[in-house]
């Protein structure tokens, strides 16, 4: 019988959590209390494979941040396959964290949360993305230093989207890069270095045009980085992984893409400062 080592209190929680996940992710590849891989020091309470490029694994516990998740997180982060990890816990355990200290910690470390109330109703409190794609707020904060407060706010907004939907989050970060490129282009137009027609072009073409200008010779490194990024992240976001290999590739690209977006934005911002252009950007 599944979950027979659970207490009488946790068994219904596990069953309700499993039912919820079956409805949400399907039953493909469903395994109960079995290993995902011999290299991962964790047997989840259950896991399933909603698509060939994703495993959703759940740990049922009476603890809001069970020690095994810290161990599992370490192994899963390094594992070459996208695995999202959800904690399934009783609602009263979730509610007892009145200051949400542990809940915040759990989210910050990339885990999702499902609660189950006394009536066995399961609710997804917090969605999550595969752990290897997760970018913690601490990492984000350290990457953001050097940007303007407005740019930081924009990246934090994209990050909030990223932690539950990596594609949309990365797209948001890409739009900030585009806005900075546009700001540079506007500056170039105002200095009559190029014609206003540049502003109606696609980002990659704007970058190419700026790149070719003599006045931007000193800034080709920053522009070249932006050009590569624009090409790369668009592909990453637009094309869902069709197999495990592509999924693994996407893992790396999403996370590093978001960090790249911040770093490229810093370089582009430096261009704006040096050229004394307005750094006001609009992201729609």
């Amino acid at each position, binding site marked *: 019988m599944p979950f027979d080592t659970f*207490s*009488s*209190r946790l068994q219904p929680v596990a069953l309700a959590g499993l039912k919820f996940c079956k409805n949400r992710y399907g039953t493909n590849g469903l395994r109960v209390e079995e290993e995902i891989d011999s290299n991962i*020091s*964790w047997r989840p309470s259950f896991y399933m494979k909603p698509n060939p490029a994703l495993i959703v694994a759940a740990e049922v516990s*009476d*603890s809001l941040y069970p*020690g095994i998740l810290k161990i599992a997180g370490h192994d899963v982060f390094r594992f070459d396959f996208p695995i999202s990890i959800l904690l399934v816990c009783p609602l*009263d*355990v979730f509610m007892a964290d009145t200051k949400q200290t542990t809940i915040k910690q759990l989210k910050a470390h990339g885990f999702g949360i499902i609660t189950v109330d006394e009536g066995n109703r399961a609710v997804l409190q917090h969605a999550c993305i595969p752990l290897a794609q997760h970018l913690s707020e601490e990492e984000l904060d350290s990457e953001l230093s050097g940007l303007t407060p407005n740019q930081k706010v924009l990246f934090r907004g994209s990050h909030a989207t990223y932690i539950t939907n990596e594609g949309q989050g990365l797209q948001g970060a890409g739009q900030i890069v585009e806005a900075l490129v546009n700001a540079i282009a506007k500056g170039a137009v105002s200095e009559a270095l190029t014609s206003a027609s540049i502003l109606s072009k696609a980002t990659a073409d704007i970058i190419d045009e700026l790149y070719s200008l003599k006045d931007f010779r000193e800034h080709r490194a920053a522009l070249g980085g932006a050009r590569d990024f624009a090409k790369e992240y668009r592909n990453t976001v637009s094309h869902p992984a069709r197999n495990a290999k592509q999924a693994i590739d996407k893992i790396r690209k999403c996370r590093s893409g978001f960090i790249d977006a911040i770093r490229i934005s810093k370089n582009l911002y430096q261009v704006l400062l040096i050229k004394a252009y307005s750094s006001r950007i609009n992201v729609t």
Partner: protein
Amino acid sequence: MKSETSSQLKDISPDLIRRNEDNPRLFFRPEEIDTLMASIKTYGIQVPITVYQEGGHYILIDGERRWRCALKLNLKSIPALIQRKPTPLDNLLLMFNIHALREQWDYFTIANRLPDVRERFKKERGWYPNEGELSAATGLTRGQIRRCLFLIDLPKKYKDELVRELSLPKKLQKLSEDFFIEMERSLKTIQNRVPSAVENTNKARDVLIAKFKTGVIGNITDFRMLSKIATAVDNLGITESRARTSIATIFNADNKIGIEEVYVGRFGLQYDERKIALSIDSVIDYLNTIGNDKSRLDKKLRASLKQLRQAIDKVLED
């Protein structure tokens, strides 16, 4: 699989191990498991578990937490001491003794299986064990066995409530085993000393539980005051009707009066006076022993006695 006849140390797959249905332990607290898991992750399993072989798998005698951690950590093998299959009584007693010498179980865990120990003891040896034999067999002290008896005798409804509470994480628990033990002890005292004060024991339990949960009864040690109210008939010489009225006030669900309030307001002073009278008796006894040999009096004690005399004179002065 070869059948083992004597103890043997082997590395076996956790998947081949089954839990022992006789394991009295009911609650595996996440915080305890976390600590053990972190240690096993770092240092491995240093102490082998104990199992016996049955068919194609092994049954746990000792080490369920280590086995659970091994499964959770996806360990490929676990060191195990394989023993011959014990008799049903030995199977249970082995687990009691292992825990009596090491980390103790919850009282409810023990209480839940003590009746089984008694029955198996009777079946194998022909008679029911007395308290001493039970203590020797299980490794529990007599005091522990008596505390367990309070829980064994609880009506099912309250046992279920206790199980529900104990299965909660520690910080969500409102009622503990100690609460029930203290409450039952005081109720027993009342039943012995002022039987007319408890018409319906379950109703009294319900009120006490409700008052404790709402904070009207502030501490589980307050039940000791309830016992003292019941023994006040003998100890303080108060009338039974006075004790009964006081207990009835506490057992009344319609008020918000707790044990401490009743005790301090109606009995506290008398108990304090009784305590002081007993202290004075021992001072007088001591002084009588000294007699006229004043040299035996320590300087400090002499000064204290002088102070006491002045205080007494002041109180008794007309």
